[in-house]
C-alpha cells in the first residue's frame, strides 16, 4: 500500500513538473539562449571555414555539442519536445477546469463570492421585490448584457457575462503552436527540398535533395526553355526569369515563366527561381562584310576556338566587355592573315561599320553575345505547409482573443432588508484588464443606482 501511495505521489510530482509554468518559462528562456548561440556560431559551414576561426580543440568540443548544426541537434530537439510536452500537459490540466467554469457559471451571488470580488457596491431601494428585479433585469441588459434571473427563497439573483471567448484565447494560441510543430514534422517527413540547375534547352527529372546525397524522382520532368536577366540602368539585376515547361509522359502539360517571388507549382512540387549562372562557354556572332557592300558572312565563335574566313584569314575572340569605355558591348578579336603578324583589335557592337577604318578587303562587325545560362531552381514539396499556415492563423486569432477580450461578469442580488426596503448588491469581476473594467463598473454603478422602478 505504501508503495502505491509513493508511486502516486511520484506520478503527481512528474505531472506537476510537466504542468508547471516555471518549466515553461525556463524552457522558453533556454530556447532563446540556445538560439542566440546558433546565431553567433555560424551554422553548417564547411570545416575549412571553422578552421579559420576556431582552434582544433574548440572545433572538437563544438562538434561534440553539435553546435555547428545546433538547430538539428538532439538536445535542441529535446528542448522542443520538452516545450511541447509542457504545453500539452498544461492544456490538459487547465482546459477542463476552464470549460467547467464557462459551462457552469456561478449565477448566484452568495456571501463567499461577494467577499472574493473586487468590485462590490450596495444600496437600498423602495419598492416591490419582484418588480424591482424586473426593472434591474432590463437595466442590466441595457448597460451590460442580458442577465439570467434566479429566485432563491425570496432573493433574486441577476447574472450576466461578456467575453467568455477570452478564456479560450490562451488555449487557441497554445494549440496553434502544436499545430505549427505538427505541420513542420509532416513537411520534414513527407516532403523534400532540393535544387536543380537546368541549362537552357535541357530538362531534369531527378532532383538532388539538399545535402546532395539523395535524389527524388519527380515522375515528370521540367525543361528550361529560356532564361533571361533584366538590369537596372546601374547594372544591378532587376529581375531574372525562366521560361519553364513541365513534361509528363512526353507531353508538355504546363508552361510558365517564373521569377523570384513567382514560383511554378505542379502536383504539389514547387519550383522557385533562386539563382542563375553562365552555363559553360557563351558564343559570339561576328559578321564579315565586303566594303563594297557585296557578300556577307555570319560566323559564330566560341572561346579558345578560331574560325576560318575563306579567302581572308583566321579569327578568334579573346575578350568581351559588356561596356567598353562607355561605348557599350565590345569584343576583342585576333586576326591572323597568312604572311602577316597577328593583329588584335576591338569591335564595337554599337558601331558595326567601325572596322572599315582598317581599309582592308573585309571588315568585321560584332553582332552580339549569345549567352547560355543555367537557371538555378529550388525545388520543394512540403505537404505540411498548409498545416503550418493554419497554425499561424490560429495563433494570431488566439493572441488577439487572449489580449483584447476579457471575461467580465456582473451580479445583482435583491433581497428584502430589515427596514422594509429592498437591499441591492452589485458586484463584478473581470479576468483581465482591471483598469478598463473599473471605469465600466463605475458607469454601471451610476446607471443602476439611478434606475427608476
Amino acid at each position, binding site marked *: 500500500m505504501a508503495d502505491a501511495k509513493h508511486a502516486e505521489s511520484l506520478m503527481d510530482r512528474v505531472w506537476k513538473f510537466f504542468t508547471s509554468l516555471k518549466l515553461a518559462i525556463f524552457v*522558453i528562456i533556454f530556447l*532563446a539562449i540556445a538560439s542566440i548561440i546558433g546565431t553567433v556560431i555560424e551554422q553548417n559551414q564547411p570545416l575549412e571555414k571553422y578552421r579559420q576561426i576556431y582552434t582544433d580543440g574548440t572545433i572538437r568540443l563544438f562538434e561534440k555539442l553539435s553546435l555547428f548544426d545546433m538547430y538539428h541537434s538532439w538536445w535542441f530537439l529535446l528542448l522542443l519536445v520538452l516545450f511541447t510536452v509542457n504545453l500539452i500537459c498544461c492544456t490538459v490540466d487547465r482546459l477542463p477546469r476552464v470549460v467547467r467554469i464557462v459551462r457552469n457559471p456561478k449565477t448566484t451571488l452568495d456571501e463567499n463570492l461577494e467577499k472574493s470580488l473586487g468590485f462590490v457596491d450596495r444600496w437600498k431601494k423602495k419598492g416591490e421585490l419582484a418588480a424591482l428585479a424586473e426593472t434591474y433585469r432590463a437595466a442590466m441588459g441595457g448597460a451590460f448584457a442580458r442577465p439570467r434571473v434566479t429566485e432563491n427563497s425570496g432573493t433574486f439573483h441577476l447574472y450576466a457575462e461578456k467575453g467568455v471567448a477570452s478564456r479560450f484565447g490562451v488555449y487557441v494560441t497554445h494549440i496553434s503552436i502544436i499545430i505549427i510543430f505538427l505541420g513542420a514534422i509532416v513537411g520534414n517527413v513527407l516532403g523534400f527540398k532540393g535544387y536543380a540547375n537546368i541549362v537552357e534547352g535541357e530538362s531534369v527529372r531527378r532532383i538532388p535533395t539538399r545535402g546532395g546525397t539523395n535524389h527524388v524522382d519527380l515522375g515528370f520532368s521540367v525543361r528550361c526553355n529560356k532564361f533571361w536577366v533584366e538590369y*537596372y540602368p546601374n547594372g544591378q539585376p532587376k529581375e531574372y526569369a525562366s521560361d519553364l515547361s513541365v513534361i509528363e509522359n512526353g507531353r508538355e502539360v504546363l508552361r510558365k515563366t517564373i521569377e523570384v517571388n513567382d514560383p511554378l507549382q505542379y502536383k504539389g512540387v514547387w519550383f522557385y527561381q533562386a539563382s542563375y549562372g553562365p552555363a559553360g562557354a557563351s558564343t559570339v556572332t561576328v559578321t564579315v562584310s565586303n566594303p563594297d557592300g557585296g557578300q556577307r558572312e555570319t560566323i559564330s565563335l566560341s572561346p579558345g576556338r578560331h574560325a576560318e574566313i575563306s579567302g581572308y584569314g583566321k579569327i578568334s575572340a579573346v575578350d568581351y566587355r559588356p561596356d567598353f569605355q562607355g561605348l557599350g558591348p565590345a569584343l576583342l578579336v585576333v586576326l591572323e592573315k597568312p604572311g602577316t603578324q597577328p593583329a588584335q583589335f576591338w569591335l564595337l557592337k554599337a558601331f558595326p561599320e567601325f572596322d572599315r577604318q582598317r581599309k582592308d578587303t573585309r571588315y568585321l562587325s560584332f553582332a552580339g553575345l549569345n549567352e547560355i545560362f543555367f537557371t538555378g531552381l529550388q525545388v520543394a514539396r512540403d505537404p505540411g505547409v498548409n498545416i503550418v499556415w493554419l497554425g499561424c492563423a490560429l495563433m494570431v486569432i488566439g493572441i488577439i482573443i487572449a*489580449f483584447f477580450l476579457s471575461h467580465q461578469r456582473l451580479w445583482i442580488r435583491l433581497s428584502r432588508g430589515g427596514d422594509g426596503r429592498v437591499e441591492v448588491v452589485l458586484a463584478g469581476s473581470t479576468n483581465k484588464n482591471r483598469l478598463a473594467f473599473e471605469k465600466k463598473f463605475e458607469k454601471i454603478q451610476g446607471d443602476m443606482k439611478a434606475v427608476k422602478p
Partner: protein
Amino acid sequence: MLNVRLFDLTTLLFGVASVNYVAALYGKKETIARIGTWVCIAAAIVSTAAIGVRWAESYKMGIGRIPVTNLYESLVFFAWSVNLFYLAVEWKYKSRTFGAFVMPIAFGTMLFALTNESSIQPLVPALQSYWLHAHVITCFVGYAGFAVSAGVAVMFLMKAKREERKVTGGVVGRFPSTKVLDDLVYKAIVWGFPFLTAGIITGAAWANYAWGTYWSWDPKETWSLIVWLVYAAFLHARVTRGWHGRRAAILSIIGFLATIFCYLGVNLVLSGLHSYGGA
C-alpha cells in the same frame, strides 16, 4: 530629393518635441508640453507626407515601391510608428510626461537614419514582393510598441525608486502613478506582441513564396524568434507568476534591447539574408 528634406524636417520636429517634453517636465509648464503635442502632430503629418512623397518619387525613378525596404526607410518608418503610438498613448492616458521618455527614441532613430544612405535604390529581385510590405510594416509597428513599453518602463523604475525612498514632488512626482505606468508597460507589449507575431508569420510566408522554406534559421529570423520568446516569457511571468512592477519593467527593457539587436545588431555583427546588411 524632396522626401529627404521632409524627413530632415521631421527629425527637427521630433527634436523640438523631445526638448519641449523634457523642458515641461523640469519647468512644470503644461503649456510647453502642449506645444510638444502639437509639434508631434505636425511631425506625424510631415513624416506621413514624406513617406508618400518618397513612394511617388520612387515611381518617378522607374523603381516604384513602398518605402520600407532598406535601413534608412525602415528607421524612418519605425520613428513614424513610435510617434503615432506615442500620440495614441498621450491621448488615451491624458498625460504628457511620457513624451520625455518616448519621443527621444523617435528623435534618436531619425538622427541615426541621417547617417545612412538616403537615396532611393532599386530593389534586388528577392525583395520585390507584397509580402515584404506586410512583413516590414507589421514588424515595425510591433517594435514601436516595444519601444513605448521600454520608455515607460524606465519611468516606472524611476518612480518606484522615489516611492521606495518616500520622496515626493520633483520631476518624477509628476509622472502618473506606478500602477498606471506598470499597466502601460504591459499594454504596450500587448499591442506590440501580436504585430511581432504577424511580422514573423508574414516573413515566413514570404520566405516560403520566394525560396520554398518558411524557416531556415537565418540569423535575422532567429533573432526575431528570440525577441518573441523574451516577450512570451514576459507575458507568462506576468500572468502566472505575478511578475509586476520592477521585474516586469526590467524584462521589458531587456526585450527592447533584444529588439534593437535584432533590428541593427544582426546586420552589423552577424551576417544573413536580409537586405539592410550593406547599408
